[in-house]
């Protein structure tokens, strides 16, 4: 790689990382408000918004690198220059690599491990009406797999749940499958480090569960009760006699309580419609405006000076 391209590459990655981090940290300040705001659009839309927010810092960084940094560099930087890359710039570029590499490596490792465990489980599993019944005593029911999702149920859960409960629980898992929630979960996990708040992920998880509950029950109150009782029964299967982690317990208990209460007393309020197309249009217009403004001679010169400072 020529020094010219090497500098461009380092500089772009450094800019990407800085913008990603700044947007991520700013997002951290408004996460709680964003979650409350998203809630009014219904759980499915709210979950999508959480996913979009999780990736927003990365996209802002990409935009800054591609639409601001690269054109300015190509315009102002001489092809032959003896300018050396400064340590901060190289360090920021390395941090960009780590910010993507670590989540990616951790997720890949997790996927491989999950697949190995899953294949070991499925070896002894019995398939009944499209549901894999596992013999191991894991009192749970889960949707597994990315592309070919399967519902995994332990024998214990099969024996425990009544027909209505099992029907509601299977509808819940199929709702996850139809929404491709495992794929979205993967997207969340591989999102780069950007300093944003972890509560975005928790909120996504909560909204996703709520959305699957809503799709499973379809407003049928009997089915809602059946699903609520299935949740409590499965949670009870392994309820410990003593609870050493009080804080965790309260947090988890609150989630289960919220889900059950939501199923038993659904809100009468109709979710507001989310102006998706308008928001997308506004974002594109804003990005276009920034991109064009950054190429104006005065702005471009300022950007170039800032980049020069970063390179040095």
């Amino acid at each position, binding site marked *: 790689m020529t020094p010219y391209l090497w500098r461009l590459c380092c500089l772009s990655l450094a800019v990407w990382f800085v913008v990603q981090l700044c947007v991520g940290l700013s997002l951290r300040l408004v996460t709680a408000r964003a979650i409350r705001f998203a809630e009014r659009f219904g759980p499915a839309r709210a979950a999508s918004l959480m996913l979009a927010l999780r990736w927003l810092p990365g996209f802002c960084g990409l935009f800054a690198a591609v639409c601001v940094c690269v054109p300015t560099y190509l315009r102002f930087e001489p092809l032959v220059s003896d300018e050396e890359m400064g340590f901060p710039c190289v360090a920021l570029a390395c941090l960009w690599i780590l910010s993507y590499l670590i989540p990616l490596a951790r997720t890949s490792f997790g996927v491989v491990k999950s697949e190995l465990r899953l294949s070991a489980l499925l070896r002894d599993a019995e398939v009944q009406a499209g549901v894999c019944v596992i013999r191991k005593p894991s009192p749970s029911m889960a949707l597994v797999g990315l592309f070919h999702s399967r519902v995994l149920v332990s024998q214990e859960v099969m024996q425990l749940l009544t027909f209505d409960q099992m029907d509601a629980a299977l509808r819940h898992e199929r709702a996850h499958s139809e929404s491709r929630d495992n794929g979205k979960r*993967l997207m969340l996990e591989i999102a780069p480090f950007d300093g944003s708040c972890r509560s975005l992920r928790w909120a996504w998880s909560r909204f996703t569960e709520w959305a699957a509950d809503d799709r499973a029950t379809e407003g049928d109150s009997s089915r809602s*009760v059946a699903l609520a009782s299935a949740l409590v029964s499965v949670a009870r299967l392994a309820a410990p006699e003593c609870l050493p982690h009080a804080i965790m317990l309260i947090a988890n208990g609150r989630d289960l309580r919220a889900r059950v209460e939501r199923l*038993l007393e659904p809100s009468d309020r109709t979710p507001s419609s989310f102006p998706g197309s308008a928001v997308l249009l506004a974002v594109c217009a804003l990005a276009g405006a920034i991109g064009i403004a950054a190429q104006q001679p005065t702005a471009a010169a300022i950007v170039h000076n800032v980049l020069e400072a970063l390179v040095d």
Partner: protein
Amino acid sequence: MPWSRNKPVVAFADLGPLEQAVVELLWEQGESSVQDVSKKLDRPLAYTTVMTTLDRLFKKGVLERRQVERAFLYTPRFSREEMQRRYASAFVDGFLVRESGEMLFSCLVDAVGQYDAALLDELEEQIRKKRLEIERREKP
């Protein structure tokens, strides 16, 4: 193999036939020596085979032992129910370890073994009331 409190917890179903027979026997008989176990087993086995099996189960964290004079006395570390519960909890926790990226599972309830029994009682009561309400509404 899932781990719990620094000790491995194996599933009963994952133990070999002889190991299962030995653990079953210890659940019934309580604390026993190698000799006691070999006498009470259905099939005649060499003393050393039983001793090795008990030792293996001890190393797997399934049994506890104490030395009385020159012999070891073995007891199950957990009751049948406790063993199943611990294994299940560790097993599902293993699936839900999000830090290591094992997250490609959408579970019916978020994590097993973290719910307060009082809370579950309360929720069950709410469900019962709601069910009654629906039944009353549906009756002509």
